[in-house]
Each structure stands twice: as structure tokens, then as C-alpha cells.
């Protein structure tokens, strides 16, 4: 690629567009956001990911101006926005329910924000037309929201929130109401529009696949705190905690005790068995408790004993057939289940593994990530 990779967060010269500085938000006794600091850069597609009640929606509503932080500061483009009401912020939001005005046509919905700015007709018309074109809604301009489909409504909501060309667009579970197919298609449309308009997007979602697909960076949240912020590949391949590893995708977690060796760590996991071996960027002391996180697709499964250092014999007790993939649940000594995933590159009739088969599981020493907690 000719252009440099988009990663403003690695460049100390870059000024962040949004800064959370020690933000705490309480609702009565409940702490929704717990002393949170985070920078978000211009033109990022930043995903807030977490289970419901983790504080991600509260963070978004504070950016929009519907909630004020109890403590700390939120800066947008260097300006403290604590006293700025929602209607004075260069921030627009796309609501989970879309919140389209039912008494106005698609055209008037999109023009709503521009009219409130007091723009002239000559300015509003081309802008609305542009938004309709961007979201491919030209044919539906004169319809009311109840006369179009869910996917179209979602696009109207997007067009309406983009019409004022905000510095920052907030998307609250934008695809939650769409079915799986439409959702995927819309994810790519969103990325496309984000690229075309150059707007900074902050998306709130509980769907990890969605976050991984669209975002430049993902923040995994839990109980009002951000656990890890990283690019999707980093989040997946180098989770910083068992919580993140477990939240994103499928994972095997093996608990053990670390013993440093010259070329990495030996991990004692079952009494009387050969220890597992892993390399780690984090350092562990001798005898420290550790967790080995290992993605199922990185575990090889076969009937013959492999020549690798990490190998375990076990018995297939379950097979989850997903069409393109199969996940084998293998019971290994100590009663533990390890999942191994293979791509089904061959037709079903030519595959040999089945229930109750004795198999060997193996993985390389860099396949697993060693975690402290």
C-alpha cells in the first residue's frame, strides 16, 4: 500500500478530537462510568463494545450532551463541553430507535437540522439531495417514515444525522434492528460512508463481530471502565485480560503455574503431565498463576501424534458443525474441554474425525497468549 496506515493514536504529534479526562458518572449510588480517561482521534471509527449496563451508552450520551459527567472533563476539539447543551454541539447522534419524526417526510427529516441552523432553501436543497444520494434514498424522499422498510429507515436516520456535517457522529446500536444479512451489508455501507465523509464515528454496540468489522479501534468495556483499547486484530490476537479474550470470539482458557525457561515459559496445568510451553511479551515470576488464552482455530487436531512441543491427547465429545467451520470439543486429561476449530475445506463424506475418536491436539508456542488475570 502506498498510503501510510491510519493510526493517529501512535503519533504523539496528533491532537485527539475527543478527550475523556478522569470522567465519572453516577446515577444515585450506581456508578455508570468509573474514572475513565480516553482519547479519540479525528476520522477514527471508534467502537465502544461491552455487555449491557457496562456504561457504553452513558459515554455516548455524555458526548451528545444528554448527560453531564459527575466528575472530570470531556473535551471536544480542545473545548470543555460540560456547559454546552446538545443543540449547540457539533455532534450528531443516530439513535437506536432511529427516532425519525413520524409526521415529517424523509426529505423533511433530513432537512430538519439544516432548517434549525437557519440555512436558506438554496443551501438546504442540494445538501439534502446529496444525503439522499449518499444513502441511496432518492426514490423515497416524499415518503413518511412508516411507509419505508427498516433498512431504509436506518439509512434515513444516518442521512439525517450526517446532514449537518458534524465533526463527530455517534451511533447507538445502529444496526440492532436489522436482520443478519442486511446488517452485514449495512456495516460495509457505514464504513464506506465514514470514509467518504471523513467524519469521526463513535459506535456503541454489544455485537463484537460488528465492532471488529467496522472499527479502526475497539474499546472493550466492563462495569464503567475500559478494559482494553486496540485495533481489531490486536484485540483478538493480544487480549490483555481473560475478560477481553473471553468477550471477543471463542477462546480456550487454561489455568496454570508459570515457570520461566530460557526460551519462554513452561506452564504446569495438570499434575503429572508434561507442562505446556509458551512465549510471552509479559514477564511472569517463577510459580506465578497464569492463564493461557488460545483461539480454537489455532489448535490443530489430528489422529497421529504430532512433532510439536505442545500436544495433548484427548477424546472428541462434541462436534459443532457450522458449515464453513467445525468446532471439536475435545476432553483432555483432568476433565478439561479444549476446543479446536478446522475449516471444512473438504466435503463432509471425506472427513474422518467423529465422536468418541481419540485425537491429538497441538499448537505452536506462539499460538497462545499468557495472561495474568
Amino acid at each position, binding site marked *: 500500500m502506498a498510503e501510510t496506515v491510519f493510526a493517529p493514536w501512535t503519533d504523539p504529534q496528533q491532537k485527539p478530537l475527543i478527550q475523556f479526562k478522569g470522567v465519572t458518572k453516577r446515577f444515585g449510588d450506581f456508578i455508570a462510568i468509573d474514572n475513565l480517561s480516553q482519547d479519540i482521534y479525528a476520522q477514527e471509527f471508534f467502537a465502544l463494545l461491552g455487555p449491557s449496563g457496562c456504561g457504553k451508552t452513558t459515554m455516548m450520551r455524555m458526548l*451528545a*450532551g*444528554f448527560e453531564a459527567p459527575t466528575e472530570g472533563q470531556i473535551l471536544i476539539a480542545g473545548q470543555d463541553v460540560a456547559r454546552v*447543551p*446538545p*443543540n449547540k454541539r457539533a*455532534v*450528531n*447522534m443516530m*439513535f*437506536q*430507535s432511529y*427516532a*425519525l*419524526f*413520524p*409526521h415529517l417526510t424523509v426529505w423533511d427529516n433530513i432537512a*430538519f*437540522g439544516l432548517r*434549525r*441552523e437557519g440555512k436558506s432553501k438554496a443551501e438546504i436543497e442540494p445538501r439534502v439531495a446529496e444525503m439522499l444520494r449518499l444513502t441511496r434514498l432518492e426514490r423515497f424522499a416524499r415518503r413518511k417514515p*412508516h*411507509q*419505508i*422498510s*427498516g*433498512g*431504509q429507515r436506518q439509512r434515513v436516520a444516518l442521512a*439525517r*444525522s450526517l446532514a*449537518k456535517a458534524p465533526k463527530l457522529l455517534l451511533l447507538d446500536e445502529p444496526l440492532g*434492528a436489522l436482520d443478519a444479512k442486511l446488517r452485514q451489508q449495512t456495516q460495509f455501507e457505514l464504513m464506506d460512508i465514514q470514509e467518504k465523509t471523513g467524519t469521526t464515528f463513535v459506535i456503541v454496540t454489544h455485537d463484537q463481530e460488528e465492532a471488529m468489522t467496522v472499527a479502526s479501534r475497539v474499546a472493550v468495556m466492563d462495569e464503567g471502565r475500559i478494559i482494553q483499547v486496540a485495533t481489531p486484530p490486536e484485540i483478538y490476537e493480544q487480549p490483555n485480560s481473560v475478560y477481553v479474550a473471553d468477550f471477543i470470539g471463542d477462546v480456550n482458557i487454561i489455568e496454570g503455574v508459570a515457570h520461566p525457561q530460557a526460551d519462554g515459559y513452561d506452564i504446569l496445568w495438570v499434575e503429572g503431565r508434561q507442562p505446556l510451553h509458551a512465549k510471552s511479551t509479559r514477564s511472569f515470576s517463577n510459580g506465578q498463576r497464569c492463564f493461557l488464552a488460545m483461539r480454537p482455530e489455532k489448535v490443530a487436531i489430528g489422529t497421529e501424534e504430532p512433532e510439536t512441543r505442545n500436544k495433548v491427547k484427548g477424546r472428541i465429545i462434541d462436534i459443532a458443525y457450522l458449515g464453513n467451520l467445525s468446532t471439536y470439543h475435545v476432553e483432555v486429561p483432568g476433565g478439561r474441554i479444549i476446543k479446536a476449530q478446522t475449516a471444512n475445506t473438504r466435503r463432509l463424506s471425506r472427513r474422518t474425525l467423529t465422536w468418541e475418536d481419540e485425537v491429538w491436539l497441538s499448537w505452536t508456542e506462539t499460538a497462545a497468549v499468557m495472561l495474568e488475570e
Partner: protein
Amino acid sequence: MKRFSAFNVVSLTLGFAFLYLPMIILVIYSFNDSKLVTVWAGFSTRWYGELLQNEAFLDAAWVTIRVAVASSTIATVLGTMAAYVLVRAGRFHGRTLFSGMIYAPLVMPEVITGLSLLLLFIGIGLDRGIVTIILAHTTFSMCYVSVVVSSRLVSFDRSLEEAALDLGCTPFAAFRLVTLPIIAPAVISGWLLAFTLSLDDLVIASFTAGPSATTLPIKIFSAVRLGVSPEINALSTIMIGIVTVGVITASLVSKRASVKQQAEEQAAVRAT
């Protein structure tokens, strides 16, 4: 199963007769040619003609309409505001007390409401007349408006208002441009209800009316004490007509709104 068994027909007839026979008799006798109310002397509309010549009745009717329009309009504004605060403000200190106090006049005996208003007007030295009737009617009809409007506001999606704010509306503009158009059917039927209530009222009006202004129900009541005249029958028939039209319109407005909403929801479900 037979839908209309003999028993059903009889009970239905009895029920409706009980409700409407007096009014039907009144309407029939309003077209009686005779001056004696209880003696039928052939069909005539002469009492309607004479009614139009009766200045006192016409004045009272004019007062009644002005009172009804003014008080229902004020009641609609105040009632909508109260409903908005009750539904929107969430929990605040004394909320239960506040909402209880808004709805209390619904169950308060009219005599007490009338009497207390009378005492108030005397206390502050306000001369009784059309103004005091308007104030009194506003007082008791705004809680009805508030009930109608707040039931609509409860099902109102709050994010619509947030979206309006987000797109640059001040809170007042958001209410005017988004909330009000959407809850308009409820506001209109609240207004019609208040209008009808004001038109009907005798008790509170008789406490708060003065020599300068008399409403139609008071006029009729005092006329009847001197004996029922066919003119009153004619007048009452007209009032029944007006009230019926008002009630039917109010229910049609709210029914149409709910049918429309349902159709829209169904269309939305189909479309997704």
C-alpha cells in the same frame, strides 16, 4: 350461538330506553305546537323561531359559548403543560402529591369546587361575571385535559425529543416542532372534552356567575322553576345536538389517531 336472543333484545331495549327515553321525549315535545308542554297539538317549529327572538336566552347562549371557548383553551394549555411536567420530569420531590393534586378535582364534588371558588373570588374582590366563570371552568376542566394528554405522552418515544435537540432545537422548539404535532390528536380531544364540560356545567357556573353574565344552563334552570315552557325544550334539543356533535367529534379524532397509529405500526412491521 344466537347473537340476539329474546333476553338480549329485551335487556338492550330496556337499557337504552332508560338512557334515552327522557331525551327523546324532550326532543319530540320541542316540536309540539301547543303551549302546554304535556299536550300534543301537532308538529311545529314555532318554538325554535320564538327562541331566536328571546334576547335573554340568546345572550346566555353567547356567554356560554364564549366561556366554553376561552376556558377550554386555557385549560388545554395549562393541562398540557401539567401533563408534560408530570410525565417528563421523572421523579422529583413531591411528585405524587403534585399529580394527586392535579387529579383531585376529578372526584371533588362540584358544589365544593364552586363554593370554594366563590369564596376565593369574594376574598380577592373579583366581581363575578364572565371572567370568574371562565376561571372556574378552567380550574375544573384542566385536569381532564391533563389526563387525556398524559396518557398519550406516556407512550411517546422520548428519543424523538432528544433527536430534535441533537439536531439543533432549543427545548421549546423541540416541543413545538416535534412533540406537539405528534400529540396533537390528544390535545384536540382534550380541548373538545373541556369545551363540552364547560357547556354542560350548571353547579359551578351558578356559584361563580354574577348578574352581569348568566350561562345557558343557569338560564334554563331558573326558567324551569317558573314552569317548563316549550321554548326550553327547543333550546335543550339544540344543546343536546351540540354536545352530541362535540362528543362524537372528540371520540372520532382520538379513534382516527389510534387507528392511524396502528396502521402505521403494522405497515412498519410489514416493511421490515
